[in-house]
């Protein structure tokens, strides 16, 4: 395996992360609608998290077992949150 394949350009990924940070801040302070701004801010956050997990945590070269260990709690969490919405958000 080539050195570039084993080690992606970490500085380039950091540059992307900083650029996304700036984009996220712009979304918060530019005159978008509230819902659109929140959607954009969290889309940017997911993109940043993806970059860190894939390249810095090396998930791109990990086995299925690691994906399962990391993915299961995420799925549980999403399920738990959705299940609680009727009780907490719509309870009056």
């Amino acid at each position, binding site marked *: 395996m080539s050195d570039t394949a084993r080690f992606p350009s970490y500085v380039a990924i950091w540059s992307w992360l*900083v650029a996304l940070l700036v984009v996220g801040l712009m979304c918060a302070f530019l005159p978008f609608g509230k819902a659109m701004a929140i959607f954009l801010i969290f889309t940017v956050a997911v993109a940043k998290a993806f970059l860190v997990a894939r390249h*810095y945590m090396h998930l791109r070269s990990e086995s299925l077992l690691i994906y399962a*260990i*990391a993915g299961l709690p995420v799925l549980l969490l999403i399920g738990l949150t959705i299940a609680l919405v009727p009780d907490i958000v719509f309870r009056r």
Partner: protein
Amino acid sequence: MTTAATVAAGGRIPSGKLAIWWFLASEIMTFGGLLAAFVLCRFAGGGWEDQAAHVNARIAAVNTLVLLTSSLSMVQAHRAVEEGSRGRAATFLLITVLLGLTFLGVKGFEYSREIEHGFTPSTAPFWSFYYGLTGLHALHVLAGVLANAALWIAALRGRGWARVAPRVEYAGLYWHFVDVVWIFLFPLVYLS
């Protein structure tokens, strides 16, 4: 040296790495549960936006940059270990430790300003979540700083480094996870 005791899951994944991923899975549930509670309570109750307007997004943005940069230095430390360069690994670990301490210092300054203005955990539900979430995150940063500092000292000494070196990857996984948590905490608490 890789022994039967240090290898798990079909002989491919080192048990140390498997253990840190199990730990991170539990951490996902811990932070995820708190973040989900924050979002649900915010939807359920009114008046949070007025309170949230008092946090300082500019200081937090600087801290985000600090943490993102510390992730870069941490991954460079791991790379140095893979390339067999103990000296470079030590340098990058030291940079990571210093950036982690910077994050904590800035966070402390932020807390002091907020408390000075009368915003304490008992002020409103938003502030309870704010101090709970960011405080728990700061404790995780502190734990990462201590782990990285221990690795930095081991790298400087050099004795037994071959045995310790793989732990840089494990510490890195933890450190990047703490970074990912902040990536979601920052917009949730400061921007939305």
